[in-house]
C-alpha cells in the first residue's frame, strides 16, 4: 500500500464521519466541529491524490486550493460559532429544538 492510498482512504472516512456528525450530533459546537472534520477529509483527498506520482516537482495546484479552502472553511466556521453563541445567549439553547 502506497502512502497516498492510506491517506486517500482516510480522507473518505473523515468525510463520512463529518457528514454523519453534522446530522447526528446535537450540540451546535459539535455540528460545527463536524463540518471542519468533513472539510479536513476533503482537503486530505486533494493532497493525497496529488502525491501519487512522486515526481521531483509536486503538483502545487492542489496545495494552493487546499490553503484557500482551509481559510474559507475557517471563516464560515467562525461565523457559525458566532451564531451559536448568540443563540445560546438569547435562548439558552445548545441544540436545535426540533431535531432535523
Amino acid at each position, binding site marked *: 500500500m502506497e502512502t497516498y492510498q492510506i491517506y486517500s482512504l482516510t480522507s473518505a472516512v473523515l*468525510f463520512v464521519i463529518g457528514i454523519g456528525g*453534522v446530522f447526528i450530533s446535537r450540540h451546535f459546537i459539535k455540528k460545527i466541529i463536524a463540518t471542519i472534520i468533513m*472539510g479536513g477529509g*476533503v482537503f486530505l*483527498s*486533494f493532497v493525497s491524490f496529488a502525491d501519487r506520482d512522486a515526481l521531483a516537482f509536486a503538483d502545487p*495546484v492542489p496545495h494552493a486550493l487546499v490553503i*484557500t479552502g482551509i481559510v474559507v472553511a475557517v471563516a464560515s466556521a467562525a461565523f457559525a460559532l458566532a*451564531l451559536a453563541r448568540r*443563540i445560546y445567549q438569547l435562548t439558552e439553547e445548545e441544540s436545535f429544538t426540533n431535531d432535523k
Partner: protein
Amino acid sequence: MTDLPISPYPALLVGLPILMATLSLFFRTRGEAIVGIIGSLLTAGLALIAFVEVTKMGTVIHILGGWEPPLGILLRMDPLASVFIGMTAVVGVFISLYAWRYFPAQEATNGRLPLFWPLWLFLWAGLNGLFLSNDLFNLFVTLEVIGISAVALAVLSGKSPALSAGLRYLLAAITGSMAYLFGVALIYGSTGTLDLKLLSQVLEPGTTTSFALLVITLGLMIKMAGFPFHFWLPPAHSSAPAPVSALLSALVVKGAFYILLRLWMEVFGVSLTYAAGQLIGLAGAIAVIWGSWQAFMQTRLKLIVAHSSVAQLGYLLMIFPLIILAPGVTADSADWLSPVWTAGIYQVLAHAFAKASFFLSAGIIIMALGHDRIESLRDLVGHMRITALAIGLAGVSLIGLPPSGGFMAKWMLLKGIFLSGQWWWAPVVLTGSLLSAGYIFMLLRLAFAPSREKAPFRPVPKKLEVYALLLALGSFLIVLPADSLVQFLESSEIFGSGIETILEGGINGND
C-alpha cells in the same frame, strides 16, 4: 475556447460590487447606505452594458492574469450567463431601491440595520462570479461568498428565531459546499483539470466519476433546497427582513441550480443515465406537491411565500428528466428540448420577479400591520390598493395563469412533457398549479373581504408599494420579448441541447 473575444466586463462585474462594498465600510450608517445604493446602481448599469455587449458580440471571455486554463482561471459570459446576470441586475436594483426606503422607514420600530449594503454587494459579486465562472474550484469559492453573505443577511434582525434559522441554513450551506468540494477533489484527481470546457473533453465514466457526480449533486441539492434537503429554507426565508427574503428567494437559490444545470449539461454527460434524470425529476415532483400543500396549510403570509419557493424550485428540477434522453434517442430527433429549455429559463425569470415582489409586498404588510397573520389581510384592497394588486399579479404568475411568465413556463413544460411522451409528469404540474391557485385565491379572497372592525393599517411610503408592483409587472413583461430571448439564448452552447446517455440502465451515479 480562447479565440473568443476578450472583454473586461466579466472581471468588472465581480470587482465593482466588492470595491463598493469595501468602500461602504468606511462610513457610518447613512453614508454606508449612500455608497451602497450607488454601488447597486453602478453594478446594475454595468451588468446591462455587459448584457448588451454579449447580444452584439456573442460569448465573451476574460482570462484572469493572462494565464490560460488549465492552470489559470477563465471567466466566460455566454448568453445563458448574461441572462442570469441581467435578471440579478434588474431584480437586484428594485430590491435595492426598496431597501433604501425600507430600512429608514423601519428605524422607528425596529432599530437600524447596519451592514445590509456591504453584505448585499458581496452577495451580488458572488452571484455574478458564480454565473461567470468556468472553473470547478472557483465555483466553490463563489458558493461560499454567496453562502456566508446570504446567511449574514438573513440574521440581520438579530432575533432568536432568525438566528436559529440562520445557523441551520449556514450548517446546511457548509455541508453542501463541502460535499461539492469532495466531488471536485475526485474530479481533479482523476482528470488533472478544473476547467469545465476541458473537463467535458477528458472526463471518462467510471466509479469515481459517478461518485463525484453523486456528491456534487447532493451538495448542490442541499444548497438549492431540493426535496429531501428543503428543511432549512422556509424558516430562514421567512424570518429574514423583507428585502433579504426577496433576495434569498429570487436570486440566491438560483445560483446552485445554475451550477447544477451547467455541470450536468457540460461536464457529466458521460456519466449520466436516464434513470438519474428520472430520480431528480421525482425529487422535484415531490417538492412541487409537498411545498404547495405546506404553503396551503400556513397561516402566516411569509411562511406561505417561503413554502411556495420549495414548490417553485421543484419545477426547475423537473426539467432534468426531459433533457436527459433515453438511450438511443438523439438530440436532433428530440423536438421537445427547445420548449423544455424555454420553460426552464422562464420558470427562473418568472419566479425571480414574482417571488421578489411577493416578499416585498409581505414586508409592506408587516410594516403596516406589525405582523403577517393572514386573517388580518381583510380589506387589504380598501387600504393598500397597490400592494393588493402586486400580490394579485405575482400570485397569478406563481399559479401560471396567462399571460404571465409563469404561464409561459408551465405551458412550455407541459408541451415538452407531452412531446417527450413522459406523460407521468403532467399531473404533477397541474396539481401544483391547482394547489398554488388554492393559497393565492385564499389570500385574494381575504384581501377583498370587508373588514369587521376598523383595521389598524399604518401608513407606508408609497414608493415601496410601487417597487413591489413594478417587480410583479416584470413577471408579465418578460413574456413580450420571448422569441428574441430564446433566439439569443440558442447561441449559447448548452441551451436547447440534450444529454444523449451512453450508459445503459441503472441509477449508477445519482441520488
